[in-house]
C-alpha cells in the first residue's frame, strides 16, 4: 500500500525502519512488554474475579491469625508489581538502551550530514 514516488526519496527514518538492527530492537521490546502486560493483567483480573465470585475463599483465615487469603493475594499484587518493575528496568538497561542509543546516534549523524 505504499504511495507512489516514496522509493526514490526515502527518508532516513524509513531506511532505518527497514533495517535489521531496528527490527531487532522492535522485537526485543515487543517480546518483553506484550507477554508481560498480558501476564500482569490476567493476574490482576484473576484477583478481581476471586474477590467478586469467591469472597468466602478470600475471607479464609490463615492458621490462627486474622490474616486472610484475600489480604495475602492482595499484597502479592504489590509484590509482583514491584518485581515486574525491577525486571523491566534491568531488561531495558541491558537489552534495549544500547541498541536504541546506537541507532539514535547513527540517525542523528546522518540527518546532520543531510542538513549540511
Amino acid at each position, binding site marked *: *500500500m*505504499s*504511495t507512489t514516488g*516514496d522509493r526514490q526519496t526515502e*527518508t532516513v*527514518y*524509513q531506511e*532505518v*525502519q527497514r533495517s535489521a538492527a*531496528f527490527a531487532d*530492537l*522492535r522485537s526485543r*521490546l*515487543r517480546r*518483553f*512488554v506484550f507477554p*508481560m*502486560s498480558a501476564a*500482569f*493483567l490476567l493476574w*490482576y*483480573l484473576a*484477583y*478481581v*474475579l476471586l*474477590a*467478586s*465470585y469467591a*469472597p*468466602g475463599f*478470600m*475471607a479464609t*483465615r490463615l492458621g490462627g*491469625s*486474622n*490474616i*486472610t487469603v*484475600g*489480604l495475602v493475594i*492482595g*499484597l502479592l*499484587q*504489590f509484590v509482583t*508489581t*514491584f518485581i*515486574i*518493575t525491577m525486571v*523491566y*528496568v534491568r531488561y*531495558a538497561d541491558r537489552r534495549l*538502551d544500547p541498541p*536504541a*542509543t546506537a*541507532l*539514535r546516534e547513527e*540517525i*542523528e549523524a546522518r*540527518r546532520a550530514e543531510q542538513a549540511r
Partner: protein
Amino acid sequence: MTSTLAQSGGATVGSPWLNIAIFGLFVVVTLVVVFRVGRSNSTASDYYAAGRSLTAAQNGTAISGDYLSAASFLGIAGAIAVYGYDGFLYSIGFLVAWLVALLLVAELLRNTGRYTMGDVLAFRMRQRPVRAAAATSTLVVSFFYLLAQMAGAGGLVALLIGVTGKAQQALVIAVVGVLMIVYVLVGGMKGTTYVQIIKAVLLIAGAAVMTIWVLGLTGFNLSTLLGDAVANSPKNGEAILGPGLQYKNKVDLISLGLALVLGTAGLPHILMRFYTVPSAREARKSVVWSIWLIGIFYLFTLVLGYGAAWLVGPAVISDPNTPGGTNSAAPLLAYELGGPFLLGLISAVAFATILAVVAGLTITASASFAHDVYANIVKKGQATSRDEVRVARITAVVIGIVAIGGGILANGQNIAFLVALAFAVAASANLPTILYSLYWKRFNTTGALFSIYGGLAICIVLIVFSPAVSGKPPNAAGRSASMLQGVDFHWFPLDNPGLVSIPASFLLGVIGTYVGSREKHNAEKYAEMEVRSLTGAGSEKAVEH
C-alpha cells in the same frame, strides 16, 4: 476511645485555627517557591514541560504528588475503615495500573510528543481532526477530575475548620481555585512540579509516621491490628477481613477494576509529566520512582484504614453527623494518635493534596487547549511559542473559574465516584487510541476519531443512565445513594461503565480503521514516529538554562 470526640462538641475536632495556621504555612512556603522558579517561563517548553530538565527522582516524586489525590488518601483510608477489605481493592487497581504506563506508554510517548497527548495521537494522522478529538477528551477527563477535587475541598473544610454552611464552603472552594490559578500562572510546570513534590513528601512522611505509630501500638503485628479492627466493628465484624461489603454487584466490581487498571495510562495530567524529563530513560526511571512511592503509600493506607476502624471505629466514621463522612477516617485517626497538632498537620497535608492535584490538572487542560486547539488547529502550527504560552495562561484562568463554579455545584458529591468516572473516560477514550497509534501500523485518522469520540460518548451515555446518577432505592433517611434524588431514568445496570465502554472503544478503533482504509497511509510519518518512539532520535531535548 471516642470520648474525646464527643467532648469537642461533634461539629469539629481539634483546633480550627491550628489547622488553618499549618495550612497557611504550606501555602506561604509553596508560593515563595513558585515565585522563585517562575521567572524563567517565557517559552512553551519552560511553561509546559519545565524545560524538560527535571531529574527522574524529582519527576517521580511529582508524579506521585499528582496521582495521590484526596480521593486516594482520604477516600481509601475511609473505605477501609468502614468496609474493610473492599477499600483495599481500589488501591491495588491504582497501583497495578502503573505497569501499563511503565511497559507500554511512558517511554514511547516521551520520545514522540512535545507537550500534550494530542502530539502523539496526531503525529501520523490528519492533524486538525485528531488534535481536536484529543483536546476534547483531555478537557473532559481533566474537568471530571477537577470537579472531584474541588468538591472534596468543600467536604474537607467542613471537617477541618468547622465551616458547615454551603456559602462559606463555596468561599473556601473559591480560595482553592484562586490559589491554583496563581500557582499555574506564575510557576508554570516547574512551579506546579515543586508544589507537587513538597506535597508528596509531606503526605508520604505523614502517612508513614501514622502507620508506624499504629503498628507500634499493636506491637508491630498486623494480625493483632486486624483483630482489634474487627473487635471495634460491631456492625460488620469479621466481614471486614474479606471482600463483599462495599461492592454488592459482582459485575460492577469487575467494571470498576478494569477502569482503574486501564485508566491511569490515559490520564492526560499524568502523561504530560513524562515530557518534563530530558529523555525516555529518565521517563522510565520517573515511573519506577512513582511506582515505589505510590505502592508504599497504599500499603500505609491499609494500616491507616484498619487503624481508624480500631481506634476511631466505623460507627463514628460513618455517622451522618460526622463532618466529612467517610473521608474523615484518616484525620480522626490522626487526632486519636497525636491530638490537635497531628490532626492539623494531616489536615493541612490533605488540603495541600487537593491544591497540588488541581494545579496539575489545570496546567494540563490549559496546555491542551493552547497547544492542540489554538496553536495547531486555529493557527495551523504558525503560532509563536510566546503566543502559545499567553493563550495557555488565559485558558488556565478560565479553567480555574469554571472549576470553582463546578466545584461549588458539585459540593457534597461522592469524590471517589467522580474520580472513578474520570478514570473510566480516560481508559475508554484515551488508552485504546494511544496504544493503537504507538503499536499498530494500519491505524489511521478515522480509527483514532472512532475510538476517541466513540469511547467518550459511550462512556458518558452509560454514566448518565447508570444507577450512580439516578434510581438507587432510598435509605431509611429517605436519601438515595444516586446523584439525583426522586427521579429514576437509569437502564444501564452498572455504576461504572468500564466493562462495556473500554472494549467498545478498542473495537471502534478497529472498525474505524477499516472504514477509513482508503485513507492514504503516510509511510514517511509512520516511519518517523516508530523509529523515533523506539530510539529517541529527533526527540525533544532539554533546555539549557
